[in-house]
């Protein structure tokens, strides 16, 4: 009896410690989808046999990676690719520590982080663009237009009612109800939050005070949901709610979303095409990193986020190098066609050419 109580006490202590140490990896660490095997028309890569590539990172890219990997491994059955998700931060960290063969991320390394990348020279390969919607839930209002300043004021709780003069000014001829606004945002640290607030920082310079980061000091009278799905769920179930949700999740949840005023002053609806248009209006740096929000162009949807995969140019393992080169080539060429089907935007031509040139630097 005595022993048992003491043991339970110990188990609980250890359990608490265990929970703590696991916290870091408990989030969204789903096992990668097993690659499809057993294709009839399998052809071995030119430079050699079997290779297994492991990758982690961007959850924004996960749906794309899943279809791209499935299609790629059907044609290259000797190559196996595991994409673990886990978030952009994890993708950058795992790649820097050489835990993975490539990583995918919605943001570039900061300078101090770049020094810690252990595997030598690497390239950013742009893979996709995607629209972040401003989704809302108001009965009877099927078309809503919002400018960056109005969005900033709504999310900062400077505007608390849907019939506010600032919203009405963006929507001539629309009758907006006398309804309280409920703001929904992410509870988890997120690249989507980072990009959404980067848009507000760049496009609503005078109104937006909360800056841009993966976690924002939101006002207390807002609601938080876990992941795009969590925010979508709040918007869907709350009258008067507004939240930022990526396009695939907004569509999957059947949400209504606003047209957002772009840098040319036009209100543009989020779509695969309007996000791709943003890619034409951006300034690309020498290392192929760029900012995609608030890009120039009449047809551009302004809250567009980019996503890259990162890979070392001189992989130590030759077989892996060859497989990496093949898969990256596939991602920036043939796989691009699959992007619109799952509501991502493919790279515009100019950017695609640069991506292909970056892939050519991989020695394999």
């Amino acid at each position, binding site marked *: 009896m*005595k022993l048992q109580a003491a043991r339970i006490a110990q188990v609980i202590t250890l359990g608490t410690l265990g929970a703590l140490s696991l916290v870091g990896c408990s989030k969204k660490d789903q096992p990668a989808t097993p690659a499809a095997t057993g294709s009839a028309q399998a052809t071995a890569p030119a430079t050699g046999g079997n290779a297994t590539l492991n990758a982690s990172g961007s959850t924004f890219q996960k749906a794309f990676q899943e279809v791209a990997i499935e299609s790629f491994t059907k044609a290259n059955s000797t190559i196996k690719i595991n994409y673990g998700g886990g978030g952009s931060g994890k993708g950058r960290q795992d790649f820097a520590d050489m835990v993975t063969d490539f990583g995918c991320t919605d943001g570039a390394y900061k300078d101090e982080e770049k020094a810690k990348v252990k595997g030598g020279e690497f390239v950013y390969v742009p893979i996709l663009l995607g629209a972040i919607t401003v989704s809302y839930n108001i009965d009877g209002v099927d078309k809503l237009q919002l400018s960056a300043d109005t969005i900033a004021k709504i999310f900062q709780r400077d505007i608390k009612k849907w019939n506010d003069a600032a919203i009405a000014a963006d929507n001539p001829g629309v009758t907006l109800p006398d309804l309280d606004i409920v703001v929904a945002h992410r509870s*988890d640290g997120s690249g989507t939050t980072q990009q959404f607030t980067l848009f507000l920082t760049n496009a609503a310079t005078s109104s937006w005070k909360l800056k841009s980061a993966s976690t924002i000091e*939101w006002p207390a009278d807002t609601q938080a949901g876990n992941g795009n799905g969590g925010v979508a769920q709040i918007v869907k179930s709350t009258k008067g709610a507004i939240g930022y949700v990526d396009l695939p999740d907004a569509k999957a949840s059947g949400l209504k979303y606003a047209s957002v005023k772009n840098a040319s002053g036009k209100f543009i609806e989020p779509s695969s095409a309007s996000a791709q248009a943003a890619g034409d209006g951006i300034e690309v740096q020498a290392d192929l990193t760029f900012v995609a929000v608030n890009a120039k162009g009449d047809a551009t949807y302004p809250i567009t986020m980019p996503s890259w995969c990162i890979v070392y140019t001189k992989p130590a393992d030759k077989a892996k190098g060859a497989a990496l080169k093949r898969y990256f080539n596939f991602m920036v060429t043939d796989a691009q066609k699959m992007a619109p089907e799952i509501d991502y935007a493919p790279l515009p031509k100019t950017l695609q050419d640069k991506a292909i040139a970056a892939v050519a630097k991989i020695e394999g």
Partner: protein
Amino acid sequence: MKLNAKPNRADTAFHGAAIAAAALVLLILALVVFTMATRMGPVLDRMGLDFFGSRRWSPADRLFGALPFLWGTLYTAVIALVLAVPVSIGVALFVTQVASPRLRKPLVYVLDLLAVVPSVVFGLWGVLVLAQPIQSIYIKVHNAVDGIPVLQSIFGASLQGRSFMTAGIILAIMITPIITSLAREVIDTTPTPEKEGAYGLGATRWEMIRAVVWPHSKAGIVGAVMLGLGRAMGETIAVALVIGSSIGQITTNAFASGNSMPSVIANEWGEADDLHKSAMIGLALMLFVITIAVNLIATAVVQRSKR
């Protein structure tokens, strides 16, 4: 056959292995503390002691204050205890003193089963089933106590179902089986002759419990409660799902949303940069120290009561 007075080789080996195993546990613990303490360095450089005293948590401004999360952790744990302790002690007394042996066995079985339900199940139930409808109750309670001092500051305005109170309720459900099962064991150790003696003197069942069972078990039950407290403070996922994840909330309003130390770590770790991570390691170390202290005190109290 003569018994060998000198320890043989197997004995020596066992002795060494046992010491090594015990030392390993302590070593791991020491390394965990050491690693966390060193990795906490950057945030202490940036914030100084403000890390423990500041209310602001703004990665964009490079400001990290632990106070709101400390508050959230303690407040939800206290709510959980207030709800769970009376129920647990009631159930423990029922099982040991009132229930017939036929009823006792399945009841204990079900309670132990409740203790092994993974916390994410409680969390998902909390956020998907409990959080929405319970808000109407919060609003009713708030309206009922509005204007009454103290009560109105605890049962304040409710903006959504995810709140300190909802987290406290979920935690209460999670720790009830633990407290019950430990309390039951302690109460069971009450010597039967003493109980029979009380009955023999004409005591009713309630008088017997008050005069014999309670004084005998008091310390052990306090220990059981503290173990429940330790569990409540460390719980991560269930709390992260139902507490609302508001940043910087320090309020006595149990119906407001907030955040706790483990919950903020689970939420923000993935996308955090180095300083942000260092701040979360700081939170983890604080939580570690607090839970270890609570568990040590609890174990000591339980042990003492058993003597």
